[in-house]
């Protein structure tokens, strides 16, 4: 089975901190994604990567950056955390442009 592992289930950070969310997949998938999920807004794509060192902006990239130095690892970086970035963050990977496999999610609270 595909396994996508996010480094933390719950995080509490202070406004202005630099925050790193890590995601690792073990199925050699080319594509990796970061979404945030908020009530009433659904899943919104922040960034995705289709190869090592390649990245593309999703629908809401402002305030975020990403890093993909190795195929199995995709990191989301909040450069200066703000309270409006409090959310559930979901990492996913896929081999094709469908059938995404998700991690368990990171519930981030910025205070």
């Amino acid at each position: 089975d595909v396994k996508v592992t996010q480094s933390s289930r719950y995080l509490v950070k202070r406004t202005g901190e630099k925050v790193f969310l890590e995601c690792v997949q073990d199925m050699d998938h080319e594509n990796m994604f970061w979404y945030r999920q908020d009530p009433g807004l659904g899943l919104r794509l922040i960034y995705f990567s289709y190869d090592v060192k390649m990245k593309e902006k999703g629908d809401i990239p402002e305030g975020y950056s990403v890093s993909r130095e190795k195929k199995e690892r995709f990191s989301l970086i909040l450069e200066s955390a703000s309270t409006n970035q409090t959310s559930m963050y979901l990492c996913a990977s896929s081999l094709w442009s469908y059938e995404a496999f998700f991690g368990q999610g990171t519930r981030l609270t910025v205070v």
Partner: protein
Amino acid sequence: TQLLEQSPQFLSIQEGENLTVYCNSSSVFSSLQWYRQEPGEGPVLLVTVVTGGEVKKLKRLTFQFGDARKDSSLHITAAQPGDTGLYLCAGADQGGSEKLVFGKGTKLTVNP
């Protein structure tokens, strides 16, 4: 940008009832997926439908892809409390990228 509209947004039923949720778009998709998400967890893939008119069954769940590949439905027979969750449909973006487009989901509650 392609959109997927899901209905209803919320559904609360009693154990044993049948239900159908819908996923509609004005765009054609090469495939659609259905996911179920439990509170505090990531979505889990249930099924992928690829061919127009295709019907797939997964125990008490029946998935159908519309003939024109613009819509899909999920029917649950004799719902159980364990079916409670957020049901999401998703389709591959047709703009040549590797993105998935997600609907906002149907939140299903099955009461014992």
